[in-house]
């Protein structure tokens, strides 16, 4: 108990220095936690993807459509359970800055494929009944203050004109990894309007979503789909939902790597700051360590004093940093919901925070402890007075 008391009292001998070091560790752990959360958010789509879902798109590029007639052919392939389809709508709500994901989908099959979108049965039935209806995620609805029954107008960018929708459902995610900022509506509404205004663009879809009977069959089913449409007017590329999402992330991989590097650089910087604090501390107390050695205290005790103090200061800073990460992530989540629909502090991030904190404390104490343990008692005692 005495050693713990001594560590505690030593830590507050230079209150300003300790306060500044704790502050530095807090900021570093907070920044590290937020950057790791940004990386997790980047991969949120991948994490939320299902092994039993496939995505089929035009093999040339995602921007080229596929005929809606492919649906029946895909459904006939062995191992296919459900086929849905949709198109990226790219609509703007009032102003360009109000960006959110919006799709035209085939409602029944789409919601069948995405059981993680939880919608009350009454709202679901109302959505299925009304072709001009739409579904919005809970966070999106909360952001714009939408209520069931509200009329929402999106300005089309890919499909020009003002498009009116009645909000019939608000979905919640089954768990925190589900994006609650999406907006989707009936593909039929889009298609019928196109038939009138731009018949050449009608009866086309941006992608097919396919549910397979067994995830182990996913590769075979994907190969079979692409084989079916080989040498057709629109050849297909089918991949698992996870691969599809990773394909998007690979386009921005350099940014992810840069964020990862910055997060580690922050830890290295704070390691240097804490190491400097501990080096100053040990240098000032070298005479005291010599006294401890004179009295018969061994290397273990001297090291424990230095490691303990380093651990104590770093742990306080880290604990505050970890606690602050949650409200900070909440603020980030609200401000950046357009870019990061799912911005949750993962348990792994907290583990990494703790590991980083432990590493910082240990590395910072190594040299001062080594110096204190190895100094000759006579030399140490000469530093006093």
């Amino acid at each position, binding site marked *: 108990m005495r050693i713990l008391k001594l560590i505690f009292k030593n830590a507050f*001998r230079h209150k300003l220095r300790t306060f500044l070091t704790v502050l530095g560790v807090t900021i570093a752990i907070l920044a590290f936690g937020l950057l790791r959360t940004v990386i997790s958010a980047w991969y949120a789509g991948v994490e939320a993807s299902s092994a039993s879902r496939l995505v089929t798109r035009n093999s040339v590029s995602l921007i080229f459509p596929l005929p809606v007639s492919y649906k029946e052919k895909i459904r006939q392939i062995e191992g296919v359970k459900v086929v849905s389809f949709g198109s990226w709508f790219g609509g703007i709500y009032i102003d360009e800055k109000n960006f959110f994901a919006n799709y035209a989908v085939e409602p029944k099959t789409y919601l069948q494929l995405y059981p993680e979108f939880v919608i009350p049965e009454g709202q679901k039935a109302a959505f299925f009944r009304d072709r001009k209806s739409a579904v919005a995620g809970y966070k999106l609805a909360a952001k714009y203050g939408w209520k069931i029954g509200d009329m929402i107008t999106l300005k089309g960018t890919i499909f020009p004109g003002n498009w009116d929708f009645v909000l019939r459902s608000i979905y919640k995610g089954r768990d925190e990894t589900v994006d609650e900022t999406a907006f989707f509506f009936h593909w039929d509404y889009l298609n019928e309007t196109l038939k009138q205004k731009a018949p050449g663009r009608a009866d086309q879809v941006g992608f097919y979503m396919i549910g397979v009977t067994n995830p182990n069959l996913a590769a075979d089913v994907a190969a079979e789909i692409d084989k079916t449409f080989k040498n057709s007017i629109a050849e297909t590329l089918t991949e698992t939902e996870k691969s599809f999402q990773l394909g998007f992330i690979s386009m921005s991989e350099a940014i992810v790597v840069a964020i990862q590097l910055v997060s580690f650089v922050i830890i290295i910087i704070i390691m240097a700051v804490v190491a400097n604090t501990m080096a100053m501390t040990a240098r000032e107390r070298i005479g*005291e360590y010599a*006294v*401890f050695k004179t009295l018969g*205290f061994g290397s273990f005790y001297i090291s424990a004093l230095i490691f303990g103090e380093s651990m104590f200061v770093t742990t306080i800073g880290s604990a505050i940093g970890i606690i602050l990460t949650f409200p900070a992530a909440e603020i980030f989540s609200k401000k950046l919901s357009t870019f990061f629909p799912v911005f949750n502090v993962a348990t792994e991030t907290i583990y990494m925070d703790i590991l980083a904190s432990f590493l910082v404390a240990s590395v910072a104490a190594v040299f001062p402890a080594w110096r204190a343990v190895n100094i*000759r*008692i*006579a030399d140490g005692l000469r530093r*006093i007075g």
Partner: protein
Amino acid sequence: MDDTPIVEIRKLSKSYRRGNQIISVLNEISLDISRGEFMALMGPSGSGKTTLLNLIAGIDRPDSGTITVGGIDITALSETELARWRASSVGFIFQFYNLIPVLTAFENVELPLLLTGLSRKDRRTHVDMALRVVNLSDRMDHYPGQLSGGQQQRVAIARAVVTDPMILVADEPTGDLDRVSAEEILELMERLVHELGKTIIMVTHDPRAAKKAHVIQYLDKGILNAHPQADF
């Protein structure tokens, strides 16, 4: 005082390297210190007094020669054995007290007992007794910064005697004190010798302090000479 030597030093040599130069500090010194003796070690600055004291106390290693304390050749002990031996057999009194500033007088005196395996209750009994010996029981909860120099040195003496060591080594124990405080400390040390039978080896520059000792050894140019008390 018992004539049996508690400390036996034989042909002890110690030198230091300064750059390319080797400076011989102690040159084949031999010395016996009797049990219950109060010995003063004097000499000009740089004569090797503190070096000799450090060697006797086991906080430095000689180049050659042997030091036997209480029948144990401490020059043959490993660092760990030596640390254990110091904890149980030697009490240290320093010029600048060397108390830990963030610990109270009680906690400072208790420090050496943390290595003994005594229970909390037994440690308290020992510390109470040691503080009573130095007449500081009423200041046990004070921090060193709240005590005068003389009081701090008395706490240091309590810390030195709390484990009931075989020998006490004191390096200029009155060097940082005013005359009145110095006199109190010297009287306390005399009491430790006469009433508790402690053996004290004290390095000092102060002839008044040396006068309290039974024997004065004078160290100069690595050679040790015993001086009768009348010379000082």
